[in-house]
């Protein structure tokens, strides 16, 4: 089976997942306490008014019909009005998603990029000081709540040291770069505005650290333990017996094996980052989707909650699809033995 076959097969596998996800989100949205019609009309509405709006919104139809209508709307970008912003939820999310994506993708990238060498060093120096240091860091990383880390970082680096900006994506007076991807780091580079790039990067730094510390710790510990497992394998002894350099054995031979099992967790970690970003976004006044989601929950903004849930769900599915792609790329057994 070629890699392309494997990709197609994997892509087909995510279709039922997305379908199941949509059914789930739809059902949850229908069983959530609180009647959207009464909520929309207010406490003074008469029963006739309620029935009329219910019919207008299609809520008197049987559930499967309602689901079909809802799905049709969602696919077309009609995600309903937000009670709070009075905009279409879809355009609200589209406007805010890039900020969240920029934050989570950069966070994941650096978390994994740093977790790899730290994990390898800790794993190949088991029970020496490097390993103990990584263990303490990891314990700190996973046990500190992200919003708390965020506040501490603000106190230290913004209030005390004055090194970094407090919040937002750009400083006052810095215009956003011309929108192409709406990711400021990318757009500013496309436009050649290096000042803006630097400003965006410094704004991104603290939120990234606050959000990514736990992910870094988690992935690092996984890679460490996988590296320790790999060390006992025969192919490692063989490679040593052939006289290959240790660095090559560690970073090419062992890491590729060790990383395939950590990869699944990296995929899930991305989903969790999307979900976990909300507290960090609030602390740093980051104009992203997660903050929008929190406000939607506080205001019982029904359509917005469903919209954010859809996007986070799709994020999870996409991340897992990407993980499958990488998995098949890194480990030939996955694509060769399947089917």
């Amino acid at each position, binding site marked *: 089976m070629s890699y392309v076959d494997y990709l197609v097969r994997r892509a087909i596998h995510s279709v039922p997942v997305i379908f199941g996800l949509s059914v789930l989100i739809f059902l949850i949205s229908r069983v959530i306490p609180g009647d959207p019609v009464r909520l929309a009309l207010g406490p003074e509405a008469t029963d006739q008014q309620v029935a009329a709006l219910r019919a207008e919104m299609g809520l008197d139809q049987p559930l499967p019909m309602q689901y079909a209508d809802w799905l049709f709307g969602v696919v077309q970008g009609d995600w309903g009005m937000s009670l709070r912003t009075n905009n279409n939820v879809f355009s609200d999310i589209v406007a805010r998603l890039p900020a969240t994506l920029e934050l989570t993708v950069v966070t994941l990238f650096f978390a994994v990029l740093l977790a790899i060498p730290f994990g390898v060093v800790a794993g190949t120096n088991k029970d020496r000081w490097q390993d103990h240091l990584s263990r303490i860091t990891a314990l700190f990383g996973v046990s500190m709540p992200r919003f708390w880390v965020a506040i501490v970082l603000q106190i230290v680096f913004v209030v005390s040291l004055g090194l970094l900006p407090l919040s937002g994506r750009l400083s006052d007076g810095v215009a956003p770069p011309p929108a192409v991807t709406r990711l400021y780091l990318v757009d500013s580079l496309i436009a050649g505005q290096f000042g803006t790039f630097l400003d965006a990067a410094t704004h991104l730094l603290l939120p990234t650290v606050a959000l990514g510390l736990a992910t870094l710790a988690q992935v690092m510990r996984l890679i460490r333990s996988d590296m320790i497992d790999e060390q006992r*394998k*025969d*192919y490692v*002894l*063989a*490679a*040593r*017996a*052939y*006289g*290959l*350099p*240790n*660095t*090559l054995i560690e970073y*090419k*031979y062992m890491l*590729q*094996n060790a990383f*395939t099992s950590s990869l699944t967790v990296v995929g899930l970690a991305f989903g969790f980052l999307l979900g976990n970003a909300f507290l960090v976004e609030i602390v740093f006044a980051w104009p992203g989707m997660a903050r929008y989601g929190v406000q939607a929950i506080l205001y019982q903004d029904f359509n917005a909650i469903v919209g954010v849930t859809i996007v986070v769900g799709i994020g999870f599915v996409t991340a897992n699809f990407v993980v499958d792609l990488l998995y098949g790329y*890194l*480990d*030939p*057994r996955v694509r*060769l*033995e399947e089917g």
Partner: protein
Amino acid sequence: MADPILEVKNLHVHFETHDGTAEVINGIDFAIDRGETAALVGETGCGKSVTVKSIMGLLPSATIPEGEIRYKGEDVLSLSDAERHSRRGKEMSMIMQDPMTSLNPVLTVGEQMMDVLKWQGRPRLSLSKLVRDALSTGAKAEHRKRAIEMLGEVEISAPERVFESYPVELSGGMRQRVLIAIALLSEPDLLIADEPGTALDVTTEAKVLDLLDELVEERDTSVLYITHDLGVAREVSDRINVMYAGEIVEQAPTADLFANPQHPYTRGLLESIPTLSTGIGDGIEGHLPDYTNPPAGCRFADRCPHAEAACHEAYPYPRQTGADHATACHLFDGLPARERHESLAAERVDIGTAPWLSAGGDTHSGDAPGDISADGGTDQ
């Protein structure tokens, strides 16, 4: 030994464990002549693998309190890590035991062979070499050619296809051939074969062993062959060292050992070989001693049918029982085979002679060729 390529002298290897120091190798001596195939035979856990890993320098957690390992006359234990590294693979290489796990599952056979050709003997990665290799297509094509040629030499019929394959796409026999090819890539002078073929079915194993025999014959490579199977050792080796619990209990040229097996452990091993006429052998009762608290005397005494009380107390130094035959057993008379044991000879324990000898002649039912005096041998 006339011109040994490898000499192991009084080697001791210890491991620190939670229960104390494990004295896994307790003063072993053996040598391999150039072009010779020597076998190290013993049951699982007797220290064969520790011995070869010590020779290769692949035991970072072990301590070697005493002993010498001389490769081409040079004591490798006194070399720096980098110097030992530069000899690994190039000078002495190793065929791994299990073909299913000894190849990296995520890289193609070709990639693994190319890495060996590119990096063998280098203690560390160098960035400049990485860049140079990436730019030079000539070297790459040459390495590829060499790798495919080597795959052909181990009688793989479609070497180009195997070169591009991942290990998972190959059969066990194929993978074992690949392991042999990798070990021989840079024509080492000493090859350590750690039970190759044991993981394969019998017919495939036989083919692989024949092939290996041919390959080392052509190249005049010296081989240290590790096996638990005396039958295999007889097929492949010129000389056999029988190992028990970290000591070499008997060593002799192969024909001599089979014609005149002396140590009770060797005889037990021979009787354990299943034959068509007598069925599955009896095996040897009991198990290996505790390495953290080894017996003061003979390490085999607990399992030995001929053991006397004295055997548990006195160390059975190897003694010269023939021109080129040494046995570490109190049942045998003879001068100490090693100089360092000369003081022990004065206090020799007399527990009589081996019962099978006093009963008149060799009663061993083996079907060894009768040529006892073959391979006149040289004194140790």
